[in-house]
């Protein structure tokens, strides 16, 4: 096995391990610990991106998810009453919706991998270069429309959050 293969198995194993520890940590039910394992999962995934020559994605993965989103998570978790959270039992509703979501996502992923062309997926159409990625994203007829739609979606979500967190609506 060449070094990239070994690294792939290492990072894939770490991603899965940390991912399991986020939701089912046998040693602690502490939400902060879960959040920290999620950070580690994200970092391991960034390692996988590097192996795929997607350096830009790897850097942004760390910058946005590990560095900003998870710090906000931690911020909120630390402000909550953690003791109550640790005592809480898992209820039936949680089990049903959780399993449903996992099965649905799993089905989608398997379908995509099954139906997709793995040969082509292993050869990336954009290699690492930020410039190439930018051109791909902002050229008409490439990914411009999906990109803009996703941006508007994010903006809408943001406005929604601000509306929801306002104390009184005028």
């Amino acid at each position, binding site marked *: 096995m060449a070094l990239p293969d070994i690294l792939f198995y290492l990072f894939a194993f770490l991603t899965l391990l940390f991912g399991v520890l986020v939701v089912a940590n046998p040693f602690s039910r502490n939400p*902060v610990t879960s959040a920290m394992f999620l950070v580690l999962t994200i970092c391991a995934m960034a390692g996988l991106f590097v192996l795929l020559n997607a350096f830009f994605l*790897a850097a*942004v993965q*760390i910058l946005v998810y590990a560095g*900003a989103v998870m*710090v*906000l998570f*931690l911020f909120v978790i630390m402000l909550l009453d953690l003791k109550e959270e640790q005592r809480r039992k898992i209820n039936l509703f949680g089990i049903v919706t959780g399993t449903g979501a996992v099965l649905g996502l799993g089905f989608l992923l398997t379908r995509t991998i099954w139906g997709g062309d793995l040969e082509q997926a292993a050869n990336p159409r954009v290699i690492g270069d930020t410039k190439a990625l930018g051109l791909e994203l902002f050229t008409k007829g490439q990914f411009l429309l999906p990109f803009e739609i996703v941006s508007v979606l994010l903006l809408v979500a943001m406005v929604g959050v601000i509306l929801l967190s306002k104390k009184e609506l005028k």
Partner: protein
Amino acid sequence: MAWLDSLSPQTQFVFFTLLKIGCVLGLLLTLVAYAVLAERKVSALIQDRVGPNRVNLPLIGSIPFLGQFLTKLGFWHPLVDGVKSFIKEDFTPGHVRKIYFWLAPAISLVPAFLVIAVIPFGSTLGAQKMVIADLNVGILYTFGIVSLGVYGVVLAGYAANSKFPFLGGIRASAQMISYEIAMGMSVIPVFLVVGHLNLGKIIEHQAQNGWNVLPIFGGGFSAQTLLLVPCGLVSFVIFFISALAETNRLPFDMAESESELVSGYHTEYSSMKFGMFFIGEYANMFAGAAMMTTLFFGGWTLPFFGLDVAPVAGEWWKGLLHIGIFMGKMLGFMFTFMWIRWMLPRFRYDQLMDLGWRRMIPLALANIILTAGVLALTNR
């Protein structure tokens, strides 16, 4: 050096990389130790005191003039401080969360060192580029790593499991996220002008077209250069202020603020664990200073005497000089950091957030649009 040439390129690469890591780490830790001394001397200067001047080593102290001079300078204080940190009692209070309590100092220390890895601290020495990792996404990498630094502070506050450190940790997380946005946006104009994310390429561009902070040397006076002057200046000012906030330095040291929170997130720490937070803070300052030097002040170049081009073979003195120039600029920024710390009072927390979100971020956004407009109008 015959045996080096006989090695395979891979082995040579590993050898030189390890050598560079060793040199840079050693130098950085020494600089950190002396930065603490410099901080005390600068504060003494500003407050009209003498500063540390007591430690005298037995043998060297008896050398006429030199021994006394070094003592007056406080030259041995970092050494004694280091020994003191190690031999003090390492006390772990009973109420802390042990794992995080041990992890936090390490997490606060590592990111600062990782950032240094992509900074080009010199041109070339022999055939070697003076940068540990020449990444194409260098600047994104630095921002990613810098953004991980906040975990050290937050986890320290959480691990201490008592009120003041916790408040310090909460404050730090909100503050560092806010200023990270301003910081990230303030460098986008630089990329628009340079068109590259690689830090080495950014320095190359500055050598040809003048420093990003004030592009008047080099490229001559075109309309574009003149129009880009305000963009560069605004970028630099925002970056500088955000760097102060990111490194938790006064006037933004809300996470520590002795007068309100005892000493904030590291209240419960003692001995070398406290020492590691201390080293982390100064290493972060060095990383910030190195970033500013690279992004805005031309890195290892100087626009005079042909010092802005990489040396050709045999000019090893020039390579050393370039490292010296880089260090000089970096130490200049360190001095500015210290100067500001002892001159300005601390912000109130709401003022800090207001400055970050309602002043800096809109200003940085406007600057991006302005720079893009200038570049579009002057045809690039």
